[in-house]
Structures are given as C-alpha cells and as structure tokens.
C-alpha cells in the first residue's frame, strides 16, 4: 500500500479515520432527507389516492424490479468485500471486487433502462407520451413520481459507478493516497443500496394481491 501522510490537524490515524467517516455520514444525512422527501410524497399520494395509485403501480415491471434489487444487494456485498480486502492491505483482491461492484451497478442501470424503454412503448412516460385515455390522471401523478425517484436514484448510482472505477484504477496502479477512500466510497455505495431497498416495495409491490 502506498505510504500516506496525515494532515497536520490529525494526531493519529484513528482520529483521521473517525473524522472522515463522520463527514461522510453528515453528507449521507442530507441524502436521507433528499430521498426521504420523495418517500414522504409517495406516502401522501398513497393515502390520498389509495386504489387509483395502486392500480397505476401495477403497470411497473415486477420481475425486472425484483431482479434489479437482487443485483444491487449483491453489488453491496461485493463492495463490502472490496473494503474488507483493502483494509487487510490487499491490492489485487480489492480491485477485482470493485470491478465486480461496478459491473453489477452497470447491470442495474441496463435493466432500469430496459424498464424505461418498455414503459415508453406502453405510453407510460409523462410529458413524452403518457396516454390519459388508457391510464388515469392519478396514474400520471404516480409515473411522474416514479421517473423522478428512479431517475435520481440511477443518477446517484452512475456517480457511484464512476467513483468505484476511479478507485479501482487508483488502487490498481498503487496511486491511491487517501487511506479512507475505499471505505468512504463504500459507505456511499451502500447508502444508494438502502435508498433502493425502500423504493422497491413502494414502486413494485403495490397492488399485486388484487
């Protein structure tokens, strides 16, 4: 591992580790509220519109959504393996686990894109081709929310994939200076996973029993 120099404000390596972890969690708390407001909006819609909203949610692709959730959960396990092997001082193993993480992240985006394409074909995309004569106005509200929520989540994932690939290149060429970069990017990746864990039941599981 490349030798790293701590900033003068840190007395020990542990203090540095604690400080940067706290900083990352402060950022993640703002992300909780960012995505949380979307989830609060969904709960309002669900209580206001009830069965009309549930009927609209039934048009989402549950097989693709469930497969995508499994892909993202697996990517998080790979990320945890990358952090573990990196903390143990490895170089080759973390790079391979990071590449697996990024590949699974890309797979998620491809599946998500396929869903968007199918929804476009079914005239479910508000502002582009939403078919009000087939689906209700409440359905359009649901799909506006759906594209905002999943689009913002996919954007976060694309940023994560970029960071993971950057990290893999840095570790692979032994040019990584921060001793905490892998753990911090790992925290971000797992957080994006947590967001999806909550989006999944709200989007795909509503109205499947009727």
């Amino acid at each position, binding site marked *: 591992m490349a030798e790293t120099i701590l900033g003068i404000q840190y007395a020990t390596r542990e203090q540095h580790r604690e400080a940067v972890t706290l900083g990352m969690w402060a950022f993640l708390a703002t992300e909780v*509220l960012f995505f949380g407001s979307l989830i609060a909006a969904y709960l309002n819609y669900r209580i206001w519109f009830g069965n009309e909203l549930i009927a609209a949610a039934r048009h989402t692709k549950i097989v693709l959504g469930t497969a995508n959730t499994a892909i993202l959960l697996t990517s998080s396990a790979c990320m945890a393996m990358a952090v573990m092997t990196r903390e143990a001082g490895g170089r080759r193993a973390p790079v391979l686990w990071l590449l697996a993480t990024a590949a699974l992240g890309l797979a998620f985006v491809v599946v998500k894109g396929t869903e968007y394409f199918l929804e476009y074909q079914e005239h479910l995309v508000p502002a582009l081709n939403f078919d009000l004569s087939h689906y209700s106005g409440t359905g359009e509200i649901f799909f506006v929310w759906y594209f905002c929520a999943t689009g913002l989540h996919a954007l976060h994932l694309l940023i994560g994939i970029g960071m993971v690939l950057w990290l893999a290149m840095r570790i692979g060429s032994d040019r990584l200076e921060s001793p905490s970069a892998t753990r911090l990017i790992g925290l971000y990746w797992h957080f994006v996973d947590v967001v999806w864990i909550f989006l999944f039941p709200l989007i795909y599981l509503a109205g499947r029993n009727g």
Partner: protein
Amino acid sequence: MTARIIWTCWLALILLLSATTAIAFVPLGSLNLPVALAIGTSKALIVLIFFMELKASSGLIRAAAGAGFFWLLIMVALTGSDYWHRTDQRTQIDTTS
C-alpha cells in the same frame, strides 16, 4: 468484518427480498404496505449495521447516522399529521372525459 459475515448478510438480504416479493401477492388488505415497509427496514438495518459498519463504529458516528433518519421521521410525521387527516374533498384531476 469477515467474508463469512458479508455473505451471511447477503443471504439474509436475498431471503428477505424473496419473502417481501412473495408476501406482496398475499391479500392482506391495508397491511401489505406496513409489512413491506417493515421487511424493507430490516434489510436496510442489515446494510447499515454490517456493510456500513455501524456495529464497529463509535457512538459519535452512530449518532450522526441516526440523526438523518430521526429528522426524516419528524418530517414525515408532521407532514402526515396534516395531509393524512384532511377530510375536505380533493379536486377531481381525472381529465379523461
């Protein structure tokens, strides 16, 4: 953190995913949403505690991690205390006719 813990967590997450998807097809009436959210919360806790290492973190880090979710609960509860109890008729938005 060991590889054994990581893959045990992964297995638990996949089993919970299977369970929540299966339960979604069971008619539970208004209970479906709370059950789905409870299983989702369990999955999120596994990720937070083990993958995000809150188990091995100091109290300061845990407090910072919990703060975001705590404020989110305040936001949802106060929003809901208004909107979820309105009894006035909502405006008709269906424009199909």
